[in-house]
C-alpha cells in the first residue's frame, strides 16, 4: 500500500506489533462521501440533468444562450475580480491579525477572538444596512472627514468599493480563524533558534514560521474566494446600479425569468470556470497544499535541474540569489515595520469588524420606525416588541437548535472525513477535496432548489430534519477544510508512536488527535454553525409555516419594513454570546478556586 511506504511511517522505536497491518484509515471517509453523495451530488445532478433537457430530448440550448450572452460574462468577470480582491485583502489582514494574536497574552487573545467572532452572530442584512449608514455621502465616514476639513468625501458605497468593504467584513473571520488555529499550534522554538543563529526576525519568520502556515493560508484563501462567488445579499445592497454579480444574475434567471434550467446552466458554468481556475492554480499551490503530496515538488525540481545545462543552472542560481537578496531586503524593511504593520492590521480589521456592530447596537435603541442614523430619539420599545413576540422567540430557538445540530453532525462527519483525506490513500485526495469544496461554490439557491425538488414529495419541507440535512452539507466544507489544514500540520509520527506503544484507534483519537485538533474542530463547528445560522436561501425553500428560521424571519422583516427590530435581534444574540463567555470565565475561575482550596486542604 502506497501510504505505508511513506518515510514518516518509521517511528524508529522498537515495534511491539507486526509492521504491516492493512490500513483501514480510508474507512473514515465513508460517512463524508455518503453524505455528500446522497445529500449534495444527487440533488445537484438531478437539476443539472434538467438543464440539458428540452421537449425534444437532449439540448445544449441553455448553455449556448448563457455562453453567448455578454451579460453573463460581464457578471462573471466582475465576480471573479471582486472575489480575488477580497481574498487578497482578507488573507493579508487575517494573517497579520492572526499572527499578532499568537503573540498576545492569553487573556487578551480571548477578548480579541470575541471581537473577531461576534460580528458573525449579526445578520448579514443588518450589517449591510449599517454599512450604508457608515459609508453613504451623509454617513459616519463623510461626517468625520468633514470635521477634518475634507468637503468632497470619496464615493464609498453603492459601487464596487462598498461591495468590497461589505464582503471583506463578512469574510475576514473566515480567513483569520483557520490561520490562527494553525498558528496557535506552531512551536516558536524553531523561530527563536533561527534568530539566535543571526536571522533577523522577519527573515526567521519567512523561512521558518511561514512555511508551517502555508497550508492554512491556502485553505483560508480558497474558503474566502469560493464564498465570495456565491454572495448575493451584500452586493445587492451595497453595489451600484450596474454592479450585478453572478449570483444576482442567476437569481434573476431563476426568480424573475422563472427559468430554473437556465439558472442551473449558469451555475454549472460558474462551477466549471472555478474548477478550471483551481486546476490551473493547483499546479502552483500543490506543494503547499500537500493534497498533491509534499514529496512531488522536490522531485520535480530535481528533475528540472538535472535536465538543464550547467550554464542555465548557473544563471538560475544567480537569479535565485538575486531574488533572495530582494526578499531579504524587503523582509528587513517589513521586519523593522512589523509593529506598525501588526498594529495597523488590527486597527483596520477591528474597525471593519466592529463599526457596523456599533451602528446596529445604537439602532436597537432607536425609537424610530425606520433605521435613521443617528436616531433622533431612543427607547427600548423594540426590545419589548421582540421579547413579547412568541413567533420571534420561537424562531430564535429553532435556528439555534437547527444550526448547532447540523454543525455538530458536520464536525463529526467532517472530522473523520478530514482524517481520511489527509492520512488516507493519496490518489483520491484531489477529487475528494474538490467534492468537499463544491457546496461552497454552487450557489446555495441552485443547491436548495435541487434538494427541495428531491425531498418535497416526501414531506420533509417545513420540518426540522428538512432544514438540518442541507445545513449539514453546507457546513462540511468548513469543518473538513479547517480540520484537514490542522491535521496536515500535525506530525503523523505522534499517532504512529502512540500506536506502536499499543494504543488502539480509539485511544489515539482520544489522547492524540482530539486534543491536538481541538482548536480546529471548534472553529470548524463555529463556521458550520454560522453557515446554517446566517442562511436565508435554504430556509426560503425548506421553511414551512411552523418552522421559520430566524434569518428568514429577519429577511422578511427587513424586506417588508426596515425597522430596528432586526437590530434588536442582533443585539440580543450578541448579549447571549457575551453572557456565555462571561459564564465560562466565571466557572473557570470558580473551578480553579475550588481546586486550589482543595489542594491546600490536602496539603495541610
Amino acid at each position: 500500500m502506497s501510504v505505508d511506504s511513506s518515510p514518516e511511517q518509521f517511528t524508529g522505536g522498537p515495534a511491539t506489533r507486526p509492521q504491516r497491518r492493512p490500513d483501514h484509515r480510508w474507512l473514515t471517509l465513508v460517512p463524508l462521501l455518503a453524505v455528500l453523495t446522497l445529500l449534495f451530488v444527487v440533488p445537484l445532478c438531478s437539476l443539472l440533468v434538467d438543464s440539458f433537457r428540452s421537449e425534444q430530448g437532449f439540448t445544449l440550448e441553455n448553455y449556448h444562450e448563457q455562453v453567448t450572452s455578454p451579460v453573463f460574462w460581464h457578471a462573471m468577470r466582475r465576480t471573479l475580480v471582486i472575489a480575488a480582491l477580497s481574498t487578497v485583502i482578507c488573507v493579508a489582514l487575517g494573517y497579520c491579525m492572526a499572527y499578532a494574536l499568537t503573540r498576545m497574552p492569553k487573556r487578551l487573545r480571548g477578548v480579541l477572538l470575541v471581537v473577531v467572532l461576534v460580528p458573525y452572530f449579526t445578520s448579514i442584512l443588518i450589517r449591510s444596512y449599517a454599512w450604508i449608514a457608515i459609508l453613504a455621502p451623509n454617513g459616519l465616514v463623510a461626517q468625520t472627514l468633514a470635521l477634518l476639513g475634507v468637503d468632497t468625501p470619496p464615493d464609498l458605497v453603492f459601487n464596487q468599493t462598498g461591495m468590497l468593504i461589505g464582503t471583506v467584513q463578512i469574510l475576514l473571520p473566515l480567513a483569520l480563524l483557520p490561520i490562527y488555529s494553525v498558528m496557535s499550534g506552531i512551536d516558536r522554538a524553531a523561530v527563536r533558534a533561527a534568530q539566535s543563529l543571526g536571522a533577523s526576525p522577519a527573515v526567521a519568520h519567512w523561512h521558518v514560521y511561514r512555511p508551517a502556515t502555508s497550508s492554512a493560508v491556502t485553505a483560508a484563501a480558497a474558503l474566502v474566494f469560493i464564498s465570495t462567488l456565491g454572495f448575493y445579499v451584500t452586493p445587492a445592497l451595497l453595489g451600484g446600479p450596474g454592479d450585478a454579480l453572478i449570483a444576482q444574475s442567476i437569481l434573476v434567471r431563476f426568480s424573475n425569468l422563472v427559468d430554473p434550467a437556465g439558472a442551473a446552466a449558469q451555475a454549472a458554468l460558474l462551477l466549471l470556470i472555478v474548477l478550471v481556475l483551481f486546476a490551473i492554480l493547483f499546479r502552483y499551490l500543490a506543494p503547499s497544499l500537500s493534497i498533491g503530496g509534499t514529496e512531488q515538488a522536490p522531485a520535480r525540481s530535481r528533475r528540472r535541474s538535472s535536465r538543464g545545462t550547467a550554464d542555465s543552472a548557473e544563471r538560475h542560481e544567480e537569479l535565485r540569489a538575486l531574488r533572495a537578496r530582494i526578499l531579504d531586503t524587503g523582509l528587513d524593511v517589513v521586519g523593522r515595520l512589523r509593529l506598525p504593520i501588526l498594529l495597523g492590521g488590527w486597527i483596520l480589521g477591528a474597525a471593519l469588524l466592529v463599526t457596523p456592530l456599533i451602528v446596529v447596537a445604537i439602532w436597537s435603541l432607536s425609537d424610530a420606525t425606520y433605521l435613521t442614523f443617528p436616531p433622533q430619539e431612543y427607547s427600548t420599545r423594540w426590545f419589548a416588541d421582540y421579547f413579547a413576540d412568541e413567533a420571534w422567540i420561537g424562531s430564535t430557538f429553532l435556528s439555534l437548535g437547527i444550526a448547532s445540530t447540523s454543525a455538530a453532525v458536520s464536525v463529526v462527519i467532517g472530522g473523520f472525513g478530514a482524517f481520511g483525506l489527509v492520512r488516507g490513500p493519496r490518489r483520491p485526495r484531489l477529487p475528494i477535496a474538490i467534492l468537499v469544496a463544491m457546496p461552497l461554490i454552487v450557489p446555495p439557491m441552485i443547491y436548495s432548489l435541487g434538494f427541495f425538488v428531491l425531498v418535497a414529495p416526501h414531506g420533509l419541507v417545513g420540518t426540522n430534519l428538512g432544514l438540518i440535512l442541507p445545513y449539514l452539507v453546507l457546513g462540511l466544507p468548513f469543518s473538513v477544510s479547517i480540520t484537514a489544514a490542522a491535521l496536515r500540520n500535525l506530525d503523523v509520527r505522534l499517532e504512529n508512536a502512540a500506536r506502536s506503544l499499543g494504543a488502539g484507534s480509539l485511544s489515539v483519537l482520544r489522547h492524540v488527535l482530539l486534543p491536538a485538533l481541538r482548536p480546529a474542530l471548534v472553529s470548524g463547528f463555529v463556521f458550520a454553525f454560522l453557515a446554517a445560522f446566517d442562511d436565508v436561501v435554504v430556509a426560503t425553500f425548506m421553511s414551512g409555516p411552523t418552522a421559520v428560521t430566524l434569518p428568514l424571519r429577519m429577511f422578511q422583516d427587513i424586506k417588508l419594513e426596515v425597522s430596528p427590530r432586526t437590530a434588536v435581534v442582533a443585539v440580543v444574540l450578541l448579549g447571549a454570546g457575551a453572557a456565555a463567555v462571561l459564564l465560562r470565565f466565571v466557572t473557570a475561575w470558580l473551578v480553579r478556586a475550588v481546586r486550589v482550596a482543595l489542594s491546600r486542604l490536602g496539603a495541610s
Partner: protein
Amino acid sequence: MKFSRKTVLGAVVTVSTLLTTAACGSGDDSGAAPSAGTVVVPDPGGDLGKAMKKAFFDPFEKKTGIDVVLSPGEFDAAVVLAGVKAGAPAYDLVNPNGAVLKRFRDNSALEPIDYTLWQNGVRDKISPVKAADDAVPAYYISIVPAWSTDKLGDKALNSWADFWDVAKFPGKRTLAPGSWGAGGATFEIAAMADGVAPKDLYPIDYDRVFASLDKLKPNLVKFWETGAEPIQLLTGGQVTVTSAWNGRVAGAQDKGAPVASTWNQSILQYDNWAILKGAKNVKNAQKLLAFMMESGPQADFANAITYSPANSAAFDLLSADRAALLPTSPKNVASAVTQDYDWWTAIAPGTDKTNEEVAIERWQTWASK
C-alpha cells in the same frame, strides 16, 4: 504539544448546545390546538400584512374557526411553482401580481375558484378588472413618485419628468430594478419621463427607455430590491427622490417620516388571489377567498391600508375622505396610468418569449454596461 485554551470558542459551543436542548423542547409542541382546520397564506408582512390580518384573517378565524397560518416563507414565483410541481405547494392561497399570474396559469398551477361559495352578486361587483375562473383581483396599488420633504422642502414633483429633473429637484434617485419586469414599473416610468404619452406606452420603446435611463444614471445611486427599501433610503438620506408603492409612502407618513408623493402619473397595478393546485387545504382556501371578497372585509381592508378594494361595492362603505386616499378614487385615477398586464404577458413578436422576459433580458444587457 502546546495549544491554547479557546475559551471563547468553547463557550460558544457550550451555549449553542444548551440552546439546542431548549429548542428541541420548544420546537415540536406548537400547533396542537384543535381547530376546524387551517389555510396557509404567504405573509406579506409590514403594513400590508397588518391590514390583511385585521380586515380578513382575524375576522375569518373568528367566524369559521379555521386557522389562517401566515407563512413568512418568501413569496417567490419560481419557488412556489417548484413546490406545486413537486406536489407540495407551500401555500394554499397566493397573491401574485398581474404579470406573475400568467406564469402560474402557463404552468397550470391554479385551482378553479368555487363561486358557489360566494355571496350573491359579489362576483359582479369585482371591477374594473373582472374576476376570472382561476383568479380574482385582490387589491389595487400604485407606484408613485415620492420624495423627502426634509431635502426638498415645499417643492413638489408633479410628473416622472420632474423625477428626471435634477436641476429643479436636486438630489440622488433610486428606482425599482427593471429585472422585475412589470413589477417595479420602471420601464413605464422611464418612457413617461422622456415624454411618451400614457396612451402610447405600449408596446414599450426599449431604445427610448434606455436612452432615458442613461440620462438619469449619473444621479441614480442604486436600484431598490424590496418594497421597504425606497422608504429606508429616503428616510436614511441616501436618496432624495424615489419611486415607491403608495401604501408604503402613506405608512411612512403615518409614522411621522418626512416623505411626500403625488398621484400624478401614478402607475396602477393590482395583485390577484389564486388557489394553488394540489394545495392541502383547498376547501378552506375557497371559504377564505369568498369571505375576503365580501364588501365588508374589503372596506375594512381599505380603511387599514391605502390600497383600493377589488370589490367596488366596498366604496359605498368608505368615507369620502378615506376614498380620496385610494389609488382608484376618481380624482387619483384620472391622472394614473393602468399597467397593461396583457401586453407584458403577451409573446413578443418574432420570439418565443413574453414581452416581460425580453424586457428583463434587455435590462440586464443595459445594466451590466
